[in-house]
């Protein structure tokens, strides 16, 4: 069956974009954050002693790797308008599971790693089920599982730490991309953890920006009802995102454990706030529907660069936190500034007034003395 509408006369054509390319690139939060990143990096390289040294970037990546990794699925979760606060607790729980699996049960390391990843998937799946299918708010659910998963982790291992991981694996976590031998002692190299990060980054960029699934992610964040009416499986999408968040958190937890050679229940506490701060700094709207991964990567790196620059400069971490906090607030404000500029230049500083209410219930709601 064909449904072509024949109206040959006066066929309209449309420009694809209303603004020139340069404008579309520059007038974004992502561009602003990248600019800040480059500025801070350039300043630090020139002004802060030892920032341009060989170890700075190596440790920067080594330290921020868990946040970079978890920020990927977290971006998608926040774009759907949800949030996952349990990621750091999943890191802690998978760290403990890795330790118990390897040390107490005596599993071979690859099997223990798979077990830990599976635990991450189950944790994320539980979050996803409660949010997507039971319909509970993710803020409440993941505050609950933040405590729950952390509680299980600490309960399983108490205050002990499991530290007898094989050297091969703990070295691997700190491995440089190019070995010391090859560079002849020059240690100007990046940690190997960047390889899985880049692989995951490519995968998530494809998922969010170049797949039908990703379009659905944005639509859910902007208007989940309209998304459902367009055939987006809202529940399944959210479920998968929480599972992904759990698995990537588990991977980060494994990395963290091996990097420090220590499986503890309280590993990576409060990392969830750093991840969310980085994602928001990167231009993702906490209300959902807006954001892009290049901004998030810049956001994570900006936090990392600021922290290591200030550490090298001898500034206290409190000051670093204040700066990051101010940047975050500034980044959130930038959205309003940008839309204001955009509105000014398109000649309509104000939006159209909202349409009149259609039914008595709506007007009843606007009646100040009533409530639902």
């Amino acid at each position, binding site marked *: 069956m064909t*449904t072509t509408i024949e109206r040959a006369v006066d066929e309209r054509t449309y420009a694809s974009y209303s*603004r020139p390319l340069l404008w579309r690139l520059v007038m974004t939060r992502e561009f602003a954050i990248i600019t800040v990143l480059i500025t801070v990096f350039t300043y630090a390289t020139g002004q802060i002693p030892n920032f341009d040294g060989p170890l700075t970037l190596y440790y920067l990546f080594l330290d921020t790797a868990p946040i970079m990794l978890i920020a990927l699925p977290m971006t998608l979760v926040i774009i759907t308008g949800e949030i996952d606060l349990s990621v750091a607790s999943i890191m802690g729980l998978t760290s403990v599971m890795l330790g118990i699996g390897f040390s107490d049960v005596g599993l071979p390391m690859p099997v223990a790693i798979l077990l830990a990843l599976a635990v991450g998937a189950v944790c994320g799946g539980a979050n996803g089920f409660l949010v997507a299918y039971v319909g509970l708010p993710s803020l409440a659910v993941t505050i609950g599982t933040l405590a729950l998963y952390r509680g299980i982790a600490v309960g399983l291992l108490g205050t002990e730490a499991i530290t007898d991981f094989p050297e091969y694996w703990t070295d691997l976590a700190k491995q440089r991309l190019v070995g010391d031998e090859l560079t002849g002692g020059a240690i100007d190299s990046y940690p190997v953890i960047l390889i899985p990060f880049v692989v995951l980054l490519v995968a998530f960029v494809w998922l969010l920006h170049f*797949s039908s699934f990703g379009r659905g992610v944005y639509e859910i964040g*902007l208007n989940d009802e309209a998304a459902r*009416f*367009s*055939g987006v499986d809202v529940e399944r999408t959210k479920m998968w995102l929480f599972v992904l968040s759990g698995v990537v958190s588990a991977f980060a937890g494994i990395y963290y454990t091996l990097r420090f050679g220590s499986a503890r229940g309280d590993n990576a506490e409060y990392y969830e706030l750093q991840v969310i701060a980085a994602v928001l700094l990167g231009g993702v709207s906490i209300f959902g529907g807006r954001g892009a991964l290049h901004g998030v990567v810049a956001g994570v790196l900006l936090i990392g660069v600021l922290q290591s620059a200030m550490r090298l400069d001898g500034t206290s971490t409190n000051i670093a936190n204040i700066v990051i906090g101010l940047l975050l607030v500034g980044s959130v404000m930038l959205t309003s500034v940008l839309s204001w500029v955009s509105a000014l230049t398109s000649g309509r500083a104000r939006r159209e007034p909202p349409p009149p209410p259609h039914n008595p219930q709506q007007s009843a709601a606007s009646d100040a003395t009533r409530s639902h």
Partner: protein
Amino acid sequence: MAEVVKAPQSPVLELAEVRKSFGPVVALRSGSLSVDAGSIHALIGENGAGKSTMVKIVAGVHRRDSGTFRFQGGDVDFGSTAESKGSGIAVIYQEPTLFPDLSVTENIFMGRMPRGRGRRIDRKAMWAEARELFQRLGVDIDPRRPALGLSIADQQIIEIAKAISLDASLLVMDEPTAALSGVEVQRLFAVARSLRDEGRALVFISHRFDEVFDLCDTVTVMRDGAYVGTHRVADTTVPELVKEMVGREVGDLYPKSPATIGEPILQVDDLQSAGVFHDVTFQVRAGEIVGLAGLVGAGRSEIARAVFGVDGYDSGSVRIGDRAVPPRSPRAAIKAGIAFIPEDRRQQGLVVDSSVARNVASVIRGGLTRGGLLTGRAENRAAAPWAAALEVKTNALDMAATTMSGGNQQKVVIAKWLATTPKLLIIDEPTRGIDVGTKAEVHRLLSELAGQGIAILMISSELPEVLGMADRVLVVCEGRITAELDRDTATPETVMAAATNTAPSELSLSKDAEMVHEVTA
């Protein structure tokens, strides 16, 4: 009003040539209403006739643009609902919105609770007064119980009690009986009559003629945002009122060309959803436009939503051709060839903050993936011809739909669904809130699509639209299909009668049974 009033008493409420527009949309062109003390005045008209807008002006929700608005003999201009209430006007909506966790007494005295010693709220005095109010209204409600769990009828009584305690001289009831059972309606009417006998004025909005004739003294008819006429109920008849409500000659505005009607496309059997709709069986054939008529809240949209799988249903089946469409899956419905253009365009029809291209391509984008990649370029390329075919007015495909007019947005929604090459198009209120020009375009388009063999199920509250466009009309009343009328037998009267369920056999309330019988026959 030809009738000579005994005393030279001026009306309590007087509106004349009141006009109200929202941006470019004129909701009320020339509204007039004159209500006397000690009488019950019915306000009737089709959906969109301007009744609600006028009520909202009286209630202080909206401010009129121009025209006269007098209350108790003086010119008034309410800027807020509080001002309106303070002057002695109470508006009771179809579904009252009480504070569910507060007691009924607290709801009645919200914001003006009597104070005892030490500025404490004097609960005893409040309860006593509430009890007295309920006694006067002849209802038995415990003043201390929470509002939560009260029936809608009882909630309305609470609102009325509030109005009486405020000593309102004018009560406006906006379709109060829509959700009430027969006994509850009779109780409400008894209360309304006693209020009238106390000398208060009442305005009663209803779609049900039997109620108008049972309860009211005078009736004002509105159509297309304007006053048509006022009559004493005793001097008028149902056919006369219907004629005034519908007014224009139906058919001219609707360019329905005859189409060849083919094979059945949609077959719905015994669809049932407890408390929503029952025993729904119908089919829609290729090239046919089937109109689903009925009152707002009768269950029409709910049936459509169940067919499309946005909502579930308890039993029954939906088939496209000879393939069963699984329940509760819009995805499966789309795959089977169903397109659904919902009633609430901004909330359900499209993602208003997303671009035109993304909206138009939103259902078909799965098929635009090349080499695993879905690019913006592919979406633009796919969206452009559909936007062009529907003459969507936009500068560029990346413009967000939020700034567009209602008619333009509707074109985007239609483009999005036509791009899926559907077998069945379900369209809920196709022209609600869009301008006259685009309205005609949408109608022409629907006619064309039917001509190409698409089956169309059209839900509309605008009677002329249903009668003008549909090959066949199914009338839904209280969740059941109460009538199936073909193009020749569908008239405003037959549809209205079926929609309001004023079939002769069920007319126990009306004293004008013979008259309605005349209409339905």
